[in-house]
Structures are given as structure tokens and as C-alpha cells.
């Protein structure tokens, strides 16, 4: 439905009750006019000698008048002949006593509404009867057969009035419609122009805004569209960036994985040769296992990095059992450590210790610390993972090793460097790249303190400290 049509329809719908009200008003005015006319005429007729004439022969009082409307109001003297008469419509007067009884046998009965109105004190009352309007006038006296005088006013036939009424209604409606058609024109044109503009903007992927002219609602609509278009465009660009980042992430990941997988294939091929020649060398098995472990940790770390970069809501917050986490991590690294004769030990408090955060990320962070402690240890070395309560409301997680450690000038810097993907991606010769960056970043995200210190007499100690959380109720 077009805007114009809708407006026109609204106009017509609004005009119908309005016309009805007009018709009613006209009827009401006509009725009042008739009441007033009959009252003035009747009073004039019955003043002075009229009353005597009526009371002497009330049954035959109702002589037609000859002239309508009354001229000169009610100020007629005795004996004056009022010749009021509506052309072609003689006016009969019927006399009634105070109890509404008619003196004339053929007089129309007074309707209940007329009786009630007159009893309530009205001077004149009327009611529609077949053939017209019966108007009853109460005389200034309350007794005798002529206390009330009524007259039947014939009304113009509806058939006579209706065509005129319909015609004026039609003219009125047509006028409304024409007004709507004309006044809607500029608005419709502005909206059409805006629609065309919006289509153009859409075709250009919202790169240019629509024109805003004027200061009306159409201009506001254009402004609102421009706001929406800016938002959509920002989202589009962000999505494109994410897609680009994902593509380069996949490409880099593929590259990062190929290297350790190549090394792993080399180890396996050597193992095959050695197995063919007799017994495989334990060192080669350990190296292969370690390389597989490296691939797994790399994939986990890349996934953690993606999660950290995406931020909320990818990073979850739930209470988790730190003691169970320590046990999982130690069991995870035990096979590789065992292959190199590295003793990996752990201890947790008697009662499980809970913390809050993203368990996958925290597990990966701690796993990286353990991974480094194992990977950079000497064969036959030690790694210890210890979880303790620190005061009543904190935990302390310590990963220590007795490997060669890190030069003193680098130890303090381990905890300082900010997480940067570019820097972290490279496979650092000391292995202090991605894994430690993830650990730092995860600690920071969770509000845990992560520090590093040289171990005595050799090796590295990493300490993670953070708030405990209450154990959640079982659901």
C-alpha cells in the first residue's frame, strides 16, 4: 500500500465519523429550530383571546395557520391574526390538559419522552412520530383543557435531503483526498529519493553515506540509516580482518607444524633403521617422543594464543580444581620425562585447592612451564611441580628444575616481556618463545602473579601465585 493511498484511506476513515457528527448536529439544530418556532407560534396564538377560544372548544381548536414562520416574534396583541404558515405545510394545534389527555379524538398521543420532559419542568419538548416531529408546548397556566398545546411538524423527507447530503459528503471526501494527494507529494518524493540513495549506498557496500537534506523526519531517517551503515561497515571490515587473521594463522600454523613433524619423521625413520639392525637406541625414541610432544604443545599453544587474542567471551571463568590440574599436567609430561630419565615429581595439599578462570588456558600456561623445565633439562635431571596454600586465600604453584637454567640477566626479563604474536611465533632457540608468552599472558588475564628466579645450585624456578576460590557446590 503506497504512502499516498494509506494517507487517503486514513482521511476517509476519519471523515466518516465527522460526517456523522455533522448530520447529527444538523438534525439537532433543525429540531431546536422547530421547537422554538412552534413555541413562539403557539404562545402567540393562545395569548389573550386564544386561550378562551381554545378552552371553550378544545376539540376543534386545531385550525391550520396560514403563514410560517411567525413574523415579529411573539408580541401579537389580542385579536391580531397571525398568518404564519409554512408554504404548503399547514400547522395544526392540538390541545391537551395537564394530565396529557387530548381534547380532540384524532389528536396524536404525547410520547413518554415528551411527558417526562414536560413534567420535569421543560417549556417545550419534542419527539419524532410517524410523519414528522411532534412538538408540545406547556402553556403558562397549568389547568384547563389547554394546558399543553402540541403541533405536528412534518419533516422534510429523507429522500429529499439525502442526495444533497451525499453530494456534500462526496465533495468533502474529494476535497480531503485532493488535499492529501497534493500535500503528500513532497514527502513521497523525498522518501523516494532516500530509497534510491539507500540502494546506491548498498550497491557500494555502504562505502558512501546517503544525502541528508532538511531537518524533518525524512532527514532523521537518512541520518539513522547512515549510522546503521557505519556500524554495518565497521562489522564488515572487522569480519574481513578476522578472516584475514585466520587465513594467516592457518598458513603460519601449517608452517610451524611442518618443522617438528619433519624432525619427527626423521627420528622415526632412524628408529626404523635401528630396529632393522637390532635394538633401537633409547635416545632416539626419547627424541621422537619429545618431538611429538612438541607438536601437541605447539597446537595447544596456538589455540590458546587465538583464544587470548579473541578475548572475551572466548576466555571463560569457572571455578576449577587446581590440584587435579597439577596431577593432569604431571601425568601429561611424565612419559617424555621418563624417556630422558628426568624425574618429575609433584605435591598437592590434602584438600583440593580451587581457583577461578579458564581451565584450558591455565592448564596450558602451567603445562608450558613444565614443558620448558623438562625440555631444557639435562638427562637424569629433576622437575618438581608443587602446589601449596599461601596464606588462607591464595595459592602458590611452583615449577622448579635443576637444568642449566637461564643467564641471570635474562631471568628477570622472562616475566616482563609482553605477549606479542609476531615475537612469540618464532621458534626461539631457547624455547622461551610462544610457551612462556602464553604463560605470561594467561597469568595476566587471570590476575595471577608469575615470576621467575634462578634455582640453586642450577636451574630455574617459576612461581605462579593467585587467589583461591571456594569449591563450588555440587550440582
Amino acid at each position, binding site marked *: 500500500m503506497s504512502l499516498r493511498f494509506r494517507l487517503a484511506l486514513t482521511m476517509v476513515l476519519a471523515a466518516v465519523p465527522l460526517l456523522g457528527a455533522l448530520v447529527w448536529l444538523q438534525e439537532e439544530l433543525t429540531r431546536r429550530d422547530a421547537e422554538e418556532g412552534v413555541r413562539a407560534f403557539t404562545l402567540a396564538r393562545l395569548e389573550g383571546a386564544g386561550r378562551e377560544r381554545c378552552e371553550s372548544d378544545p376539540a376543534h381548536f386545531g385550525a391550520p395557520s396560514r403563514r410560517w414562520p411567525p413574523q415579529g416574534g411573539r408580541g401579537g396583541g389580542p385579536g391580531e391574526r397571525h398568518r404564519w404558515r409554512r408554504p404548503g405545510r399547514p400547522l395544526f394545534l392540538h390541545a391537551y390538559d395537564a394530565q396529557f389527555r387530548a381534547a380532540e379524538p384524532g389528536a396524536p398521543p404525547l410520547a413518554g419522552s415528551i411527558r417526562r420532559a414536560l413534567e420535569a419542568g421543560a417549556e417545550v419538548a419534542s419527539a419524532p412520530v410517524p410523519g414528522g416531529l411532534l412538538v408540545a408546548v406547556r402553556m403558562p397556566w397549568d389547568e384547563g383543557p389547554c394546558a399543553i398545546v402540541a403541533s405536528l411538524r412534518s419533516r422534510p423527507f429523507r429522500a429529499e435531503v439525502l442526495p444533497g447530503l451525499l453530494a456534500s459528503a462526496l465533495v468533502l471526501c474529494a476535497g480531503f483526498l485532493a488535499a492529501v494527494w497534493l500535500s503528500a507529494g513532497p514527502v513521497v518524493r523525498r522518501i523516494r529519493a532516500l530509497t534510491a540513495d539507500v540502494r546506491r549506498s548498498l550497491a557500494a557496500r555502504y562505502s558512501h553515506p546517503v544525502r541528508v537534506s532538511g531537518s524533518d523526519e525524512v532527514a532523521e531517517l537518512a541520518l539513522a540509516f547512515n549510522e546503521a551503515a557505519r556500524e554495518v561497515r565497521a562489522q564488515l571490515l572487522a569480519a574481513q580482518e578476522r578472516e584475514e587473521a585466520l587465513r594467516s594463522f592457518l598458513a603460519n600454523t601449517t608452517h610451524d607444524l611442518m618443522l617438528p613433524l619433519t624432525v619427527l619423521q626423521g627420528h622415526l625413520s632412524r628408529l626404523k633403521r635401528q630396529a632393522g639392525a637390532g635394538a633401537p637406541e633409547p635416545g632416539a625414541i626419547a627424541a621422537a*617422543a619429545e618431538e*611429538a610432544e612438541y607438536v*601437541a604443545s605447539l597446537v*595447544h599453544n596456538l*589455540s*590458546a594464543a587465538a583464544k587470548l587474542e579473541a578475548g572475551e567471551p572466548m576466555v*571463560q571463568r*569457572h571455578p*576449577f580444581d587446581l590440584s*587435579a590440574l597439577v*596431577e*593432569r599436567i604431571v*601425568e*601429561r609430561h*611424565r*612419559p*617424555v620425562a*621418563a624417556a630422558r630419565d628426568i*624425574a618429575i*615429581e*609433584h*605435591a598437592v*595439599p*590434602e584438600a583440593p585447592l580451587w581457583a577461578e578462570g*579458564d*581451565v*584450558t*588456558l591455565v*592448564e*596450558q600456561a602451567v603445562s608450558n612451564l613444565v614443558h620448558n623445565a623438562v625440555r631444557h633439562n639435562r638427562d637424569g635431571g*629433576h*622437575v*618438581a611441580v*608443587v*602446589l*601449596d*596454600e599461601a596464606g588462607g586465600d591464595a595459592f*602458590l604453584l611452583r615449577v*622448579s*628444575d*635443576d637444568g642449566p637454567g637461564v643467564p641471570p640477566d635474562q631471568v628477570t626479563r622472562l616475566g616482563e616481556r609482553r605477549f606479542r604474536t609476531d615475537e612469540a611465533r618464532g621458534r626461539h632457540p631457547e624455547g622461551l618463545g610462544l610457551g612462556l608468552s602464553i604463560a605470561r599472558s594467561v597469568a595476566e588475564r587471570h590476575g595471577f602473579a608469575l615470576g621467575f628466579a634462578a634455582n640453586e645450585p642450577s636451574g630455574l624456578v617459576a612461581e605462579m601465585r593467585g587467589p583461591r576460590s571456594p569449591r563450588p557446590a555440587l*550440582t
Partner: protein
Amino acid sequence: MHTGCVKPRVVLVEDDERLGGQVVTSLQEAGYDPVWLRDGREATPASVKDASLVILDLMLPGAHGLDVLKRLREECDVPVLVLSARNETLDKVRALKLGADDYVTKPFWPEELLARVAARLRRPVLQRSGALQWGDLAVDLTARLVQVAGEPVDLTRVEFDILAALARRPGMAISRAGLVANVLDPEREGGERTLDVHVSRLRKKLGPCGRLIGTVWGVGYRLEAP
């Protein structure tokens, strides 16, 4: 390695042929009685009724494995170890909330999985009271009595508390810091050096059983296997 007359039944719910085969083999070699369900729909409370443990792959993608877990948990409380395919926190949190006991993230070493299984079947290990016979060493936690080869040993309060802390979780390492915090009187005696002195006295008093109290590098002490 499990040793016992009846092999504990472990139900594995895994749709991948290669991984399933590998896990079943390592379970058999470790002395378990594995039952392999290749379809999650077979994993009904009835099918796991004789099992000591269920290993359930969450089966990437979707919540299929979680549905299985929910159905199992409605009727039985057999321990469930979840294999989490995705490195996804919500999956793990949901699984734990639905009543899983533990999870292992892929990729995992067979030894790692077996260690988790053993840990699940071993529980509870914590001994709050009662008596522990550990080789020739007998510790009565309630009566606070210690005997070595039937002979009572007279220990100080601190020495007994150290031994009790180790005996409550035999075979597990207990951290120095934890022992200091729980056993030593913070008013009178200080740190880990004091603890080491107490332990060395305790070892002497236990005589031949003194060697059962092992030092764990970087951690603390442990009641070693006799």
C-alpha cells in the same frame, strides 16, 4: 599395572577405530578388562553396570558425548573419564558439571591415560584415621602409636605429626611448605630447616624403617614403597 584376581572392567566409548584400538590394547596390557562401545547410543546404564570405570570420548563435534554422559549419570555413578577432543573449556566445564570425574585432552600418551585411569580406580587414598601397615612400619593415626617391626617407637608430637601427614597419603610426595604450615608451631619453630632437622631425627628413631621416608627433589618428603 593392575594386579588382582578380577580384572577391573573398563568401558571405552570411542567411535574412532585407530584410537579405540590403541586404547583397548594399552588397557589390556595394563591388566584391565576393556569393553569397547563404538557407538555412543550403546552406552546405556545397563551396558556399564559391571564397569569400574567408563572412558568416554566427547566425540567431536557437538554435544553427543555430553548426552551420553547425562544419560549415564541419570542412573549410575560409575567413575567417568572424559576424552576431550577439543581444547575447549566449556566442554570440560559442562562435562564436569554433568558428573564426569576427570578429563584427558587429546593428544595424550597411553601412559598418561593409564595413569588417569589408575588414579581414578585408586581413590580414595586419603586416610584420615585408622591404622596403616607399611612394610615393617605400623602407624595408628587415631591412637597416635608407631611401631617398627612390632616394637613401639617413642616420637615427639612434631615427629608423629610429620609421619602422620606422610602416612595419610602413602606413596605421594608432600611439600615442605605444606608440612611446615600444618605440622610446625609457627610461634616457636620456624621454617624448612627446622623441618629437615625433625625429619632426620624421625628417620633415626624409625631405625630400619627410616629409609621409608624419602626425600623428593624440589618437593619435600614421601613415604616410599616398602
